[in-house]
């Protein structure tokens, strides 16, 4: 019996080898030890893991392991994705061990965290994966017992045949099942039979997190590992001219100082390649503290980078981009944008005859909104481990999209992808920044240069001043009203450096007869990138503030106005390609209205603001309640209504929404990076204000629309409308409208950012 099992296990090994396309074979053997620490109960499990599918492994003594395919940056996919597999596999969740998978896009699909896509991408494949593994076990039991497959049932990791009274554990049949070809098209269970999905389950890494286990990239270590830091230019638009490292090299623990290029001149940049600074001045030493100190002793001359040209290949779309050389300042950039805004722009969408409608309007309202650069400020600064030899490259660290950076790495190392292994550690935040893998490529090049394993570490200052910010945005909204205060035309013209934020097919497109959306862009040498709900995080404040002001002008309740526009968009939609479902949009507004007691006089001590938004396939609405505290506006309570389809793990989902609300309050009140002659003025938390404990609301009530729609994302959608609801509540509280972020520019509360050495 033992021999047979061994034999089957071997075959399963070969099967997974074939599946992996000659790349990674059995994943657990390649996962670093600290990731294996993701055991739910912290037990050391005996027995051999038998792989049924890429996602499911079982030991003969019935331990169940489920592989999480997607990187984890706090959105809790390491719990919620395996829950989907476990549901279909039909196992007891408390016996499941979860393990982060290796990077293997053939075996595990996109493996990309961003665009609130994890759940959307993996819902169907993981249901099928779990159902397939269960089917293999059922078939193995049926063969062994000599009974028809359809008579074998399962429950909580057990197999049963009622007529003969036979039963057995999954583990008893795992070897045999592993030899059965993975079936395709096994139908997942009916939603009404779900026992695990839609129930709240705790974070599988909870114990590891609260006991300080080494889960993160910055915790990764290996024998002989050195530490590297890059000294980047002090300003956007500058580059390295020359350096003298003699003092640095005299410092203790320092191994080397050198200058290398990230990308070769003229090389094509992929969609998520970023080149803020291409000349890397690198200090390598034994420890982070020694390298940090020695780096201060560098004697460096910088020079203007001048205008440069880059070739981008955005997933097949090639373009030449001219990067201007000027040292940019936020004030002058805004002035340039205001001038540019007067010029004609690119037509994005037009319905009806907006020009005539505006000409004939009884009243026109026009408002302009501005948003600053926003740094991501992940709590774990950028870092990556690399060990590159002539034979292979091993990389380990926090990364949202290993599959996107692998081709870049292959190019810069001139090494085929099958010699590159990327291990995904838990990320100390991402918020879009970790979709860009430049720090991984830098680490790899540094390791190759010094011929040693190395961890590249960005200090907080390096991290905050490197760029990849949310772009600088502006948008002007106009509405035309007739003599009866009916909305007859709507116009949005948005711009940005270096991109605008306008999503032309979004609400209120489709709800207004005459509609015009336009966009324009100005080049910049400040690198920008995805920041939690890109573009939407600006649109939602501008558009939702404007709708609030519009409702007031029209003498309408802000929720009622939105609902009437959505009714129009549903019953008689204007134009084509409206990207939202008016019913789902209206449902979250109706829900938040009801849950918050919107017009109930008992809440009149609060200055209330509402906003709703649709982005990244989910719908969110918030009511924000502001009071005066110590003479300053304070968001004391928030009510949130969300439609993201089926909610996999409700309490974790509520946590995500609460976090997005806090993040939205923080960034709208305080967020904004100021540049002066290309230099970021804030470089650490003593200059850049982040929302703190005391500024968080006392209460955030989260409600989910219950439906059976396939799940969509939650990391981003609740975030953008927070900005709008805050702006609208601030208006009620302060008696003035807020058009420019960050809002606290206008009510500085005198908080001094000063280090607090003791708690």
């Amino acid at each position, binding site marked *: 019996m033992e021999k047979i099992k061994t034999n089957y296990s071997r075959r399963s090994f070969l099967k997974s080898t074939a599946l992996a396309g000659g790349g990674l074979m059995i994943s657990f053997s390649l996962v670093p030890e600290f990731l294996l620490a993701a055991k739910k109960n912290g037990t050391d499990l005996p027995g051999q893991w038998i792989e049924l599918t890429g996602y499911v492994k079982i030991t003969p003594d019935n331990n169940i392991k489920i592989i999480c395919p997607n990187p984890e940056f706090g959105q809790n996919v390491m719990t919620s994705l395996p829950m989907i597999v476990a549901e279909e596999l039909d196992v007891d969740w408390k016996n499941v061990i979860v393990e982060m998978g290796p990077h293997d896009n053939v075996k595990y699909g996109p493996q990309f965290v961003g665009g609130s896509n994890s759940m959307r991408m993996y819902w169907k494949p993981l249901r099928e994966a779990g159902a397939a593994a269960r089917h293999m076990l059922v078939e193995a039991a049926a063969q062994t017992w000599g009974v028809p497959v359809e008579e074998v049932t399962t429950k909580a990791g057990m197999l049963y045949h009622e007529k003969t009274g036979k039963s057995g554990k999954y583990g008893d049949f795992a070897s045999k099942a592993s030899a059965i070809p993975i079936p395709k098209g096994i139908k997942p269970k009916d939603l009404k039979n779900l026992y695990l999905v839609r129930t709240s389950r705790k974070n599988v890494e909870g114990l590891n997190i609260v006991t300080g286990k080494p889960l993160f990239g910055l915790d990764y270590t290996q024998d002989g590992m050195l530490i590297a830091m890059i000294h980047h230019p002090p300003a956007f638009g500058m580059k390295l001219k020359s350096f003298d490292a003699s003092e640095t090299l005299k410092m203790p623990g320092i191994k080397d100082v050198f200058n290398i290029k990230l990308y070769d001149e003229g090389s094509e940049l992929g969609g998520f390649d970023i080149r803020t600074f291409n000349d890397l001045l690198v200090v390598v030493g034994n420890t*982070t*503290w*020694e390298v940090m100190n020695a780096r201060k002793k560098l004697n460096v001359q910088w020079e203007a980078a001048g205008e440069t040209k880059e070739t981008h290949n955005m997933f097949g779309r090639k373009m030449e981009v001219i990067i201007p050389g000027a040292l940019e300042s936020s004030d002058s950039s805004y002035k340039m944008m205001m001038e540019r805004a007067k010029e004609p722009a690119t037509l994005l969408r037009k319905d009806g005859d907006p020009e005539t409608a505006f000409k004939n309007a009884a009243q026109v309202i026009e408002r302009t909104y501005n948003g600053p650069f926003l740094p991501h400020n992940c709590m774990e600064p950028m870092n990556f481990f690399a060990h590159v030899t002539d034979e292979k490259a091993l990389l380990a660290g926090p990364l949202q999209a290993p599959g996107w950076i692998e081709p870049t790495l292959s190019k810069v190392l001139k090494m085929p992808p099958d010699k590159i292994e990327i291990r995904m550690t838990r990320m100390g935040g991402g918020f879009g920044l970790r979709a860009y893998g430049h720090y991984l490529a830098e680490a790899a090049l540094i390791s190759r240069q010094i011929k040693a394993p190395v961890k590249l570490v960005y200090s907080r200052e390096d991290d905050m001043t490197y760029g990849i910010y949310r772009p600088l945005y502006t948008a002007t909204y106009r509405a035309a009203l007739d003599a009866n205060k009916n909305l007859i035309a709507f116009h949005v013209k948005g711009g940005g450096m270096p991109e605008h934020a306008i999503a032309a097919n979004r609400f209120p497109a489709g709800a207004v007869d005459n509609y015009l959306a336009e966009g324009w862009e100005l080049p910049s040498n400040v690198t920008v990138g995805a920041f939690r709900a890109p573009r939407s995080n600006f649109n939602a404040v501008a558009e939702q503030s404007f709708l609030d002001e519009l409702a007031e002008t029209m003498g309408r309740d802000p929720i009622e106005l939105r609902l009437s526009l959505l009714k129009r968009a549903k019953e008689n939609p204007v134009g084509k390609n409206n990207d939202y479902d008016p019913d789902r949009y209206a449902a979250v507004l109706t829900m938040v209205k009801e849950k918050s007691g919107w017009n109930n006089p008992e809440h009149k001590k609060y200055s209330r603001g509402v906003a709703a938004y649709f982005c990244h396939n989910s719908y969110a609405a918030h009511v924000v309640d502001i009071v005066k505290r110590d003479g300053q506006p304070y968001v004391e309570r928030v009510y949130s209504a969300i439609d993201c389809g089926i909610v996999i793990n409700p309490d974790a989902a509520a*946590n995500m929404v609460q976090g997005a609300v806090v993040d939205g309050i*923080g960034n709208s009140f305080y967020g904004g990076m100021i540049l002066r002659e290309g230099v970021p003025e804030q470089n650490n938390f003593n200059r850049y204000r982040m929302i703190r404990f005391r500024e968080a609301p006392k209460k955030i009530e989260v409600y989910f629309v219950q439906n059976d729609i396939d799940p969509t994302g939650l990391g981003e959608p609740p975030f953008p409308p927070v900005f709008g609801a805050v702006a609208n509540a601030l208006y009620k509280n302060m008696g003035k409208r807020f058009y420019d972020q960050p809002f606290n520019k206008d009510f500085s509360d005198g908080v001094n950012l000063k280090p607090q050495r003791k708690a």
Partner: protein
Amino acid sequence: MATYNLKINGQTKQVDVDPATPMLWVLREHLNMPGTKYGCGVAMCGACTIHVNGSAVRSCQLPVSAIGTSEITTIEGLSEKGDHPVQKAWIELDVPQCGYCQAGQIMTAAALLRTNPNPTDAQIEAAMNGNLCRCGTYLRIKAAIKSAAKQV
């Protein structure tokens, strides 16, 4: 370089380092105890919080030379099995999102409850205001501290 015998989590550990080296890096890179996190290096985020004789201190601003005979506790030593009331409450309320700041949050909270087992909201806010959480888990942190307070 100088040699220090440090009392950490009930054990004596010897390190040979530059006297100015902050405890944060001594723990992380010399003693292989990476539970204490680097977040800002300027005592503004609290990710590096440890206990020195039971009080919460930002280890990024604490040179090893200042420790002397003080007793250090890190997240790794807060409890043997992760069952300190604060840790248990953190799990019970499913506080973490990314989790990076949470060791520091827990150390600050545990120090607060040691001296004040029944803190008011204002006292919790004052104690926790130095610990940043970029994911915005502050409400759950507060709830967890209140829950733990009942167990301490």
